[in-house]
């Protein structure tokens, strides 16, 4: 078990700076999710931790040891790739076994570890198959199996679920959470899917353009986004980000209000709005409405509320759930 510390990490590819200067601590045993839009540098960061990329500056420490210039196989890490990267000419058992064979682990122990990994991941019946004979979910399990047998201090996941269909993704998400509980290892997980981030993480790291916007527990990030970017990125449907004038505050650049924190009435309210699109999701109804002078506002209502496009509504944002941001997009601590 190990803590991962990144100190002043920077990375440039030629003239392009991907990570300007980054510090991050991943606590021992945590499930940390790096989340951000495409191209924000989260995958590069993971590859620097794994040793597949060398940082241009700074240091990487795993379990207190400086591993910045260490080979990936000597870092006590393992990695699961988005495309699974299974070895196509080897059977499942050989795939799982490969790293151990290279590490010259005795045959008896190798067999025991492979059996144990196969049991954890329910792969016992598939050990003799080739990867091409497996379904997507099974392949992903083999990739995970390949990383568990090495008993690493830190697991790295690079968007491991993005190639799976929606139902399988939900199932694998649950399995990953269970795996984290049973192995009690440090896990670092990269995704652009904020649902995965919210459900899996103990600690979310929101990144944008190579910088860390916010680090915190999922609900902290959700309830108290430190920047307007985090506010807009975390949460689905997105938080409404409106000009400060919408609530009569000229000193506020942007005001954020989540769709579920807006009250709806047919007669009275702060904003008069016209419903443009109504999505009935079953449990929820999401209304996309237009408010004059304010802009587009998304509202989430309980599923039993029936509305039609074109109806006039009156919206009232809950004052205790407003998020205020200044010109630089930073949170303003001003609940008054």
């Amino acid at each position, binding site marked *: 078990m190990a803590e991962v510390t990144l100190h002043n990490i920077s990375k440039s590819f030629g003239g392009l700076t991907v990570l300007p200067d980054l510090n991050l601590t991943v606590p021992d045993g945590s499930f940390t999710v790096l989340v951000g839009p495409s191209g924000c540098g989260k995958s590069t960061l993971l590859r620097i931790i794994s040793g597949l990329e060398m940082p241009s500056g700074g240091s990487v420490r795993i379990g207190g040891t400086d591993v910045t210039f260490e080979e990936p*196989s000597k870092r006590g890490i393992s*990695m699961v790739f988005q495309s699974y990267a299974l070895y*196509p000419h080897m059977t499942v058992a050989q795939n799982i076994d490969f790293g151990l064979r290279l590490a010259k682990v005795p045959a008896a122990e190798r067999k025991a570890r492979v059996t144990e990994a196969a049991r954890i991941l329910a792969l016992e019946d598939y050990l003799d198959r080739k990867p091409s004979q497996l379904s997507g979910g099974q392949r992903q399990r083999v990739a995970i199996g*390949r990383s568990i047998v090495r008993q690493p201090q830190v697991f790295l996941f690079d968007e491991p679920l993005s190639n799976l269909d929606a139902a399988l993704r939900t199932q694998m998400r649950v399995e990953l959470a269970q795996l984290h509980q049973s192995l009690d290892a440090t896990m670092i997980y990269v995704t652009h899917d904020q649902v995965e981030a919210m459900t899996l993480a103990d600690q979310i790291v929101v990144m944008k353009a190579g910088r860390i916007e916010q680090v915190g527990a999922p609900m902290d990030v959700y309830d108290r986004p430190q920047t307007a970017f985090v506010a807009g990125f975390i949460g689905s449907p997105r938080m409404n980000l409106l000009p400060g004038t919408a609530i009569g505050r000229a000193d506020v650049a942007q005001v954020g209000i989540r769709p579920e924190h807006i009250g709806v009435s047919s007669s009275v309210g702060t904003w008069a709005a016209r419903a443009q699109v109504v999505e009935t999701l079953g449990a929820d109804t999401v209304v996309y409405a237009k408010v004059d002078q304010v802009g587009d506002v998304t509202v989430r209502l309980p599923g039993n509320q029936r509305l039609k496009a074109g109806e006039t509504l009156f919206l009232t944002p809950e004052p205790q759930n407003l998020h205020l941001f200044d010109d630089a997009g930073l949170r303003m601590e001003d609940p008054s």
Partner: protein
Amino acid sequence: MTRGHLARNLLRLAFLCIVASFVLAPMLATVLGGFKTNAEIRTNALGLPAIWNTQFYGSILSDPAFWRYLGNSLVISIGSVVLTLITGAAAAYVFAQIRFFGSRMLFSYVLLGLMFPFATAILPLFIKVRDMGLLDTWWAVILPQTAFSLSLAILLFRTFFAQLPRELFEAAYIDGCGYVRFFWRFTLPLSAPILATVGTFVFVQSWNNFLLPLVVLNSREVFTWPLGMMQFRGEYVTQWNLTLAFVTLTILPAIVFFLAAQKYIVAGLTGGAVKG
């Protein structure tokens, strides 16, 4: 609709038959020629033999020199194939996997070899081989043939290797597998189709090579079969029936090699060997 379809198919069939006949007719004439007497070949070159004489085939098969030529050709061809595959694949692996200063220039330089005609090089080759003291050995043929096959082999290998997913190497690298081990354990086993293609090409070329062995081999002991065939050409008379029987028997191994490799090529193309 169906009638037009049928007509098109017939047309296609006819065209293919014509093309095939260009290949098969000379081959058939060669095989049948081995059963004819010299007089009959002159009067009836393409038809079936009036009498099926098997003694020409028999005399060649019972001649120990024939088996020696065949053995020499086999050793030289297999040597060329193995050497080309190993050195070509290793070089192409470096070009495909590792970015280093001057790699593009070096690659272009290697490709220049594609434009270099073999016959032009024959004299300097002879001098070089003589200086190295390799005249009248198998190496005199194997080494130049390998050198001349490398350009094409590297070009084909590099394209194929570059298509192996990058993440495969990264996953193996994290498992503790370095470049060299990855080459032996992953790149080569996953490249059977291209290895078979290049191998067949090199084998057939070496098997049929006449000019180089003619120049660098003088002793009958190391003759390859195209040189051995020359024994039937006298100053005034050519024994066509023996020559044809000889050719028929000697192209058999090349055809067998091709058919064996073809199975791999087809399997590789349809099986999606690289898709994980």
